[in-house]
């Protein structure tokens, strides 16, 4: 009986700890959302949302609706070509994901289920490039894109992002899980080995999206 109680207490402590950690983790994001609804004067004046219309009062404690100012959002679209920027991101991210999925699944499949000459070399080459920080290749990459006439184009963003070492590794790992007997059975349809890889598109889309929204994209220098 007391052991049961101890278990209950332990679980309650677990829940409490997790809830506390989750609250701490989410607080900066909530603060961010609140900040987006405040003008510059109110940003630090109120910790989170600015108080708005009174709802009701209980025992001397007044509950208010948050005052939401949408001007930040309307200004964003009115003063910046933000819609256009988002469309650029969406297009480049979408295209990158499709090309990446195609190339990465092909290469990942070959590296998982075939033995061929040079396989080790290809793998080693891929891993070693992960060690090079992106800033090292920034200048040569720009020079190359300039020579190819791809600066300030969507293609200049999509093509270098079309091959993803990370993506190939993810595909290889999930395709490795597929038993060879199953593979031989479905060799002709070749659809089964994809089953384990269905999680990949969302990660790839997310990475491409972040990549593009967070770097100053050459395409956006052209303005609207």
């Amino acid at each position: 009986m007391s052991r049961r109680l101890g278990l209950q207490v332990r679980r309650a402590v677990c829940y409490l700890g997790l809830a506390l950690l989750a609250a701490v983790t989410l607080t900066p994001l909530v603060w961010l959302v609140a900040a987006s609804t405040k003008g510059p004067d109110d940003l630090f004046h109120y910790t989170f949302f600015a108080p708005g219309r009174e709802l009701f009062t209980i025992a001397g404690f007044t509950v208010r609706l948050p005052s939401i100012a949408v001007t930040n959002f309307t200004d964003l679209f009115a003063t910046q070509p933000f819609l256009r920027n988002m469309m650029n991101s969406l297009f480049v991210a979408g295209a990158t994901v499709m090309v990446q999925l195609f190339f990465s699944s092909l290469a990942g499949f070959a590296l998982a289920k075939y033995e061929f000459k040079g396989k080790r070399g290809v793998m080693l080459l891929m891993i070693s490039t992960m060690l090079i920080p992106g800033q090292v290749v920034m200048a040569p990459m720009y020079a190359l894109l300039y020579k190819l006439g791809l600066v300030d184009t969507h293609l200049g963003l999509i093509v270098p992002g079309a091959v993803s070492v990370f993506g190939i590794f993810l595909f290889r790992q999930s395709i490795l899980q597929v038993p060879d007997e199953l593979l031989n059975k479905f060799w002709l349809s070749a659809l089964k080995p994809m089953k384990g890889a269905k999680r990949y598109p969302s990660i790839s889309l997310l990475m491409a999206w972040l990549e593009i929204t967070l770097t100053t994209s050459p395409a956006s220098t052209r303005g609207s």
Partner: protein
Amino acid sequence: MTSPASGLSWFRLQHRYAPYLFVSPFLVLFAAFGLYPILRSLILAFYATNGPRSEVYVGLANFRFLLTDPDFHTAVRNTALYAVLAVGTQLPTALGLALLLSQKWLRGREWFRLAFFSPHLVGQVFVGVLFSVLFVPQYGLLNRALHGVTSQLNAAIPAVQPVPLDTKWLSNPDLVMPALVITSLWMYAGFHMIYFLAALQAVDRDLYEAAEVDGANGWQQFLAVTLPGIKPVTIFILVTSTIGSFQLFELPYIMLGNSAGPNNAGLTVVMYLYNTGFVTGDLGYASTVGWTLALGVLAISLVQMRLTGAWKGDAA
């Protein structure tokens, strides 16, 4: 494909050449946009450049200068310290969260998982902007929260000193590194947690039952069953997060600006690379810094894999 024999030989033929066909589109693009810029930067490491137009071959002079460059040494010290602190806080936190979330009786697991992973959805630049506001003295959320909590504690336990409201996280040289570590912990703990969760799910349930029959308690089960079970994934996270920590750039660049904080307290190697290459305009020396970093990180990764015994199995 008309007769079985020709069908078989066709199958053999395509089976032999298919992998090359599958890998070649990747290899072609990779050669152009992966390998070429990398080799080009390797060549540049032996040149002194001034902007994109002037390149003078200087042999090993860049590398010799690197050995005596005090700013580079500061950057290496900072980056190494950051890597140790960041990996040392992120991995245990991530594993702890994953262990809590993998309890069978836990309800609302998806919601907790989403909450802990959500900081990773916004990206390093975004996080840098957000935290540079949160770290503001006087009004910043972090100082207000810390001050509030520690003041309350001070009332109960006088030994606890309240954190002053004007703690200058980003302009006090001693606090710059803790600020970066806190920020990266917030951002990456939930990300690594996802890998640990996947690894924990793959641990054989029967092993736990066998351990329980043998009378092992929770801690012994963790040591004997859980840890060996998640070892490959742990090595993977250890190596990749170390590489990522050594390549830290966006967070300090956004939070501290080009100047890298007081006394270069937040100067990382990649930030120094960026400053020499794109602010000073010496792409040659920047490439030297980058390649030195890459080789150093490679050495560290190899040591990590050797020490953890990753060679013995397929750790990847």
